[in-house]
């Protein structure tokens, strides 16, 4: 899949590039993000 990436360069300029990444790019950490989340009483 493709990903819009905003690159913030060291000289202060910014540009959007389209980058090809694996389909599991956002799951590559092997964690759905819930392990460290403790839901407080509502």
């Amino acid at each position, binding site marked *: 899949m493709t*990903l*819009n*990436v*905003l*690159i*913030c*360069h*060291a000289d*202060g300029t*910014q540009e*959007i590039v389209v*980058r090809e990444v694996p389909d599991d*790019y*956002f799951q*590559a*950490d*092997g*964690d*759905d*993000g*819930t*392990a*460290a*989340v*403790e*839901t*407080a009483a*509502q």
Partner: protein
Amino acid sequence: MQQTTNLHLSQWDASDRIMREDFNRDNAAVEAAFAARPLAKLIGVTTQASAAQIDLDISKLDYTNYSTFLIVPRITLVSAVDAGQIYIRLNNAAGLYIMSGSYPERFGTCSPADRPGVGFLVLFITDQMTGLWSRGLLFGNSSASCGEINTMIGISRAQSGVPSTLNFYEKSGNTLKAGSNITVYGVRK
């Protein structure tokens, strides 16, 4: 002649003489105070466009004059996301996360848009390691619930190589909003 409290800069009264020596002393005091400040703001980025990921160039950090760099991001999402979480990678490389294993990089965030989560995150970068300490609240989108995250982690320079970019993204690929801010401070040696 009166003086200010901290730097003892001249505060002339109407009857005081205007002396060149007073200006020189004041300017020297300002210069010395500026040089002695422990923190310097090195990078201040406000994003000009929304994107799925923000890559911040940190390849030119000055490890000669600064012992540690503190990176303070304030990132929000374009749309409300229940328990959205910002992840951070180092050098955009799998396996080189600021956090790893079952606790990937993230800090509290972002939902709903009009009630953003409260996140505090500081990345520490030195010439030996990159580390992170975060604490944040995750606010639910459809209820009054909130979660809490609190994480500390570090990776060595041997693992990561020289830090070149920090990569910020939301765990499910939700778009990061234009106007998000990332600030890098340097701690003087």
